[in-house]
């Protein structure tokens, strides 16, 4: 009966798919391709209502095979993609986008640009929300490519101007690229998302044409709009922009303070700490100590010699001046139950000494002050340092011995 026939057809379709899957997962591209030619039959009776239908499967499998097959060429790939675009209206934009990605990754920028322009002019009835998003992405990527040709022309122009003559045609072309890029990039970065690449390019454009207010507004929006994810890069871009603009220390610090609040382990925290340490205000120096302590809490910073030297310097300063010991004490209170095992174990002392002497020096200084001269880490490193006749370490030992009472005050 026809019902049974349909069932069998469905079953054999499933079996075929599982063979393909098996072949793909074992990188047997030839075998997968052979099965795929059989699977194409399933398009004839596509009654399925699953959310991934046979046409999408064929697109996905075919693409994957063509990426890896030893005998496939870019021409085959383009040809296949053109066919796939006509296979399903709903997926047209997605397939276009993927095609463009592949062209871009293979360095075919011009072809990608053409493909993007073509896709942008595509219209088919009412767009779904997903299609709307895809269209916006297509426009954004076109804007990005416009930006690249703008920057290419800008470079030509700059070279020419160095030579002393100007080329009006190139300049006009450049401005038209700017307009096209700016329109599209501006659109996408209004929508919540991660748009690092697009934001950077758009800000570049604006800065070149001197529209600093707009650039600042865009960056502020990207960093502080609560609908956007808490992207550390947004704050970094803003900070870099402010720095380029030569803004005051205060605004730089406030930008970094927010970054510190959301990502205490960001690599800019060293800059932040240095900036704060130089400050005359007590409150800021205090914040600096907090920042560097917080950064060193993270496993990724464990062997960061720069960060340890920042902490060592500040702690040393405080100990010598004998002021604000309570700052250290407060920071240390929430860490004294786990920092010794995390940073100052004997095992680490041995390893740090073997791998990085200056790191072990900075750490030993901090350990000596925070934990006293009997701490395992300090004892091991200073002992090894003295044995190796390194002057630095002898000084360190003296310093810690002299200030041992301070340590007792911190611990107590």
């Amino acid at each position, binding site marked *: 009966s026809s019902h049974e026939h349909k069932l069998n057809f469905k079953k054999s379709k499933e079996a075929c798919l599982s063979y393909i899957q098996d072949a793909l997962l074992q990188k047997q591209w030839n075998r997968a391709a052979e099965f795929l030619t059989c699977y194409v039959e399933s398009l004839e009776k596509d009654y399925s209502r699953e959310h991934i239908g046979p046409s999408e499967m064929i697109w*996905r499998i075919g693409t994957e095979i063509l990426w890896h097959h*030893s005998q496939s060429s870019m021409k085959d790939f383009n040809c296949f993609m053109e066919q796939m675009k006509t296979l399903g209206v709903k997926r047209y934009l997605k397939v276009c986008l993927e095609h463009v990605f592949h062209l871009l990754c293979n*360095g075919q920028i011009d072809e990608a640009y053409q493909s993007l322009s073509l896709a942008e002019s595509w219209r088919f009835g009412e767009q779904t929300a997903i299609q709307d998003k895809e269209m916006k992405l297509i426009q*954004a990527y076109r804007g990005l490519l416009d930006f690249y040709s703008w920057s290419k022309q800008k470079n030509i122009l700059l070279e020419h101007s160095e030579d002393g003559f100007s080329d009006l045609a190139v300049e006009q072309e450049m401005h038209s690229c700017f307009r096209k890029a700016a329109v599209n990039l501006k659109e996408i970065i209004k929508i919540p998302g991660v748009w*690092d690449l697009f934001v950077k390019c758009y800000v570049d454009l604006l800065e070149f044409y001197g529209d600093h207010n707009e650039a600042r507004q865009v960056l502020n929006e990207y960093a502080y709009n609560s609908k956007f994810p808490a992207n550390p890069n947004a704050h970094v871009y803003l900070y870099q922009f402010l720095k380029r603009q030569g803004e005051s220390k205060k605004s730089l610090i406030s930008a970094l303070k927010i970054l510190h609040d959301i990502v205490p382990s960001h690599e800019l925290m060293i800059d932040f700490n240095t900036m704060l340490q130089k400050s005359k205000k007590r409150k800021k120096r205090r914040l600096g100590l907090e920042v560097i302590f917080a950064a060193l809490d993270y496993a990724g910073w464990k062997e960061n010699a720069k960060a340890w030297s920042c902490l060592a310097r500040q702690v040393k300063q405080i100990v010598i001046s004998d002021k604000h010991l309570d700052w250290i004490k407060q920071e240390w209170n929430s860490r004294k139950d786990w920092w010794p095992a995390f940073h100052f174990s004997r095992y680490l002392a041995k390893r740090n000494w073997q791998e990085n002497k200056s790191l072990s020096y900075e750490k030993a200084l901090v350990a000596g002050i925070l934990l006293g001269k009997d701490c395992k880490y300090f004892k091991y490193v200073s002992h090894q340092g003295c044995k190796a006749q390194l002057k630095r370490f002898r000084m360190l030992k003296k310093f810690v011995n002299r200030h041992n009472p301070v340590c007792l005050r911190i611990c107590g």
Partner: protein
Amino acid sequence: MEFPAALFPSYFGAGPPREEGGPAPLAGWGEHGQVLEGGPGRRQVQPAFVPRRGATGERWEAADAAAVPVLLPSAGCWIPSPAPQDILYRSSLCRKLRAGKSGATLDFAKQLGHFFVDHPEDAFGSLGRLLHKNFYLGNSKLKRPARNSTIRMTALVEDIDRLEARRGCPRHHLASRLRWFSHLCRDWLFEVPLGLLADCLHEELMEQWSNLLFDDSLTGGALAWLPPEDEGTPVGRLVHPGGQAMNHLYFQDVVLEELPRTRGSPAQFELSGRVRQVAAARVDGQDFVGVRSDYHCGVWRVPGRTGAAPAPLQVIRTDVPASCLTVSPHLPGELSVCTQSGTIYLWSVETGLQQLRHDPETMFFRDHSPWRWSDFTAHPRVLSCADRTGLQCLDARAPKKCHFDLFKVGEEAGCQQGERVVLPMYLGRAHPSQYLVTTQFSVYVLDERLPLVPVLKWAHMMKAPPLFAHLTPGHPGRTHKVLLGASRTQELLLLQYRGKRSSSESACQLAGTPQKLHSIAGCLQHLPTQLPHRHHLLRQRLAAPAAGLAATLQEDGPHKSMLIFQLSEAGDVFCQRLTHKAAQPSAPPSRDEATTAPGSSPLFEAPASSPQGSGATALRYRRWLRALSRACREPPRHTWPPSLSQRRLFTRKDLEGPAGPSSLQRQMRQRLRQTMQEGGRIQRWEPSVLQPPPLPQGLELAGGLDSLSARLTAAWAGDWEQWWEERTSFSVAQRQQALRERRRRQKRAQGRRSLSASFTSSLTYQSELSELSDTGPSLLSPGRPPILSQEGSPPAGSPPVRSPPTSPAPDEALLSSQSLRCRGIPKERRKTLRDYLSVWAEGPPEPPEPPGSQASQLCIPSSQSQLSSASQPRRKRPRMGF
């Protein structure tokens, strides 16, 4: 660690997932996802783009055609967990498996029937005894005076048989006699009130069924590899559970050669529950191994140097089953524990437990699963906690105040409807702030510096949700390898991703294509052809759900290879080697493109390319098969014909009583001897002259007797019927209450273990198994008929007790209680007979094995009793819930 200078573009939405859900078979292929400009600099003429997925990865190829066993199977047979056909209604099996939890029809009646047949005493004991005189089981007509008080049950039994024969017939209806009978006695016939019994059974069945659909107690896996401290020595340590109940923990030294082999005997610990998870982390050169069973978690310390003995540090007990145990990679002796009541603890060996959160509700939306997970993050004081709806990070110093959402099943991560978190894992060894989250559809990589937005997402297309994951970090410039493993289907998938390009940090990308690795079951087709029943057994064994995953990278100069260990629920550890191939311009069609026919495997053909390796593999398989068939022969069989010595029936003490055998004993013994010689059986054990034994006095003196003892005492005294009268005055409600109490207690004590406990039966299971594994020659060789010897010397001319059986294992058939009953053997004598027959089948006991690595495993009865450690060892088949 720097944050990547630019991330791949993506939309960010909030709220519940919008995309329609459902498993998509091939959703992970053919997509780049997004591209990012990743060229050396913008000054270049042409910008260079890199894709999020589809970049080239490293080439790793399987060195062998199948996974190879690492350990020999332990003595004592594995007890398979229940399969769908055990608890589902027969005809709807295939259809309902797909339909999911609600659609399945559980075969409730069959299970209840099993209980009645297997535990008649518990089910109908007292009333059976009371009505004994009133039920007539003969075929002849009843005479007049008897008919007043007796009914003939034969017709009823015939009706039942007929009903069974007509099963499936659309027009069958109950015989009126049956209906009448059941209507009449439904309320009072059963020892346990039927409604309550049915409730308990149904509850248990539902639990078993949901476990069959998805058993999350195995999450994390129970296998760990402790690498050697200095990478020069090729000796690492494998930590795995074993034993019939998987309640032994082994630390086994393994030498990494062409084929990894074990060295020495393992350090062994017996635990009080089934090992669900083994987690390990290395801190300061020492390994800390956390072991989770349902109600206990323990931690061991293993010093880094090879040969040092593992030291148990601490054990905690939980009231609710624990669902997670992870070991801190930052601080020695710190672990995190989650229980199914929604509590998360930070467990430090030095300072004890600190409760971080207690919330029986799920975090982001309502989900019924009590599963919780927790792991460590880049900050040693910040822990992640997860349930099926997402992940949060909380600061142990102020867990109520300081927390943030790391991952939400929702539009934020572009999830599908119905997607649920299956396994989170901290990827600290690859990148200190990265996290892996797997769901049943996809795998995500998250960066805790950018919460909620996955830095990588890929549809993994696995058939079962990945319960195990393993990370092998790559050196700078190389890819990180992630292995995903599923339990029921044994799938193993290798993914590669990259978080760093040249020297600077860059956005995460997937590299290469995902790769399927060998599963344990895959080696079946390469094994030599087996006898059908052995093949069946072997297939069942090899297809046991996976229970753990471990891997290690081995670098020997330019040769890099990866060893992947997979543990199955049967306790087998198989391993496979992947070798790294430097990039080649064009790959020749690989060997395995040609399909291999069963039996004609390259493993056994020993190809010229690597004769030694392949020969060793074949040898390894042969050894394993031999050990397996030896282990599964139950009870141990011998090549010589079984003989039965009279001594074995009685202990030495019995035989050498101080007063010498009494006349009664002598008489009995003579009778027994005679019967054995004749090959007959003893119909009536007690001779008429038997005096009633003296009543045990102690019992009556004992104060608060439990009901069983009271009943027995009454029976001894002979006034049992009066006891019954008293007992019936107990209200039914009181009994129900008591039963509920007992059930609750049992459940608490056994918990999930009841799954294995209720399905493990000592006697019946083994007899089933020996029916399958039984081979004629090994039991009774046709050429040499078994002879029942007396004092070891066969009496000349006496006829053999049994002729060599043409059908295997008649004694198993003899042993079942139904068949005994059919032969009209009274209940109280069945056990005697059964014991008698089982001794006969066992032969002399095996001398204790020389102390090999698994010597302690040979003690079968004791290890079986551990299966149901809460109750006494059982001889009958306990069915579910009892």
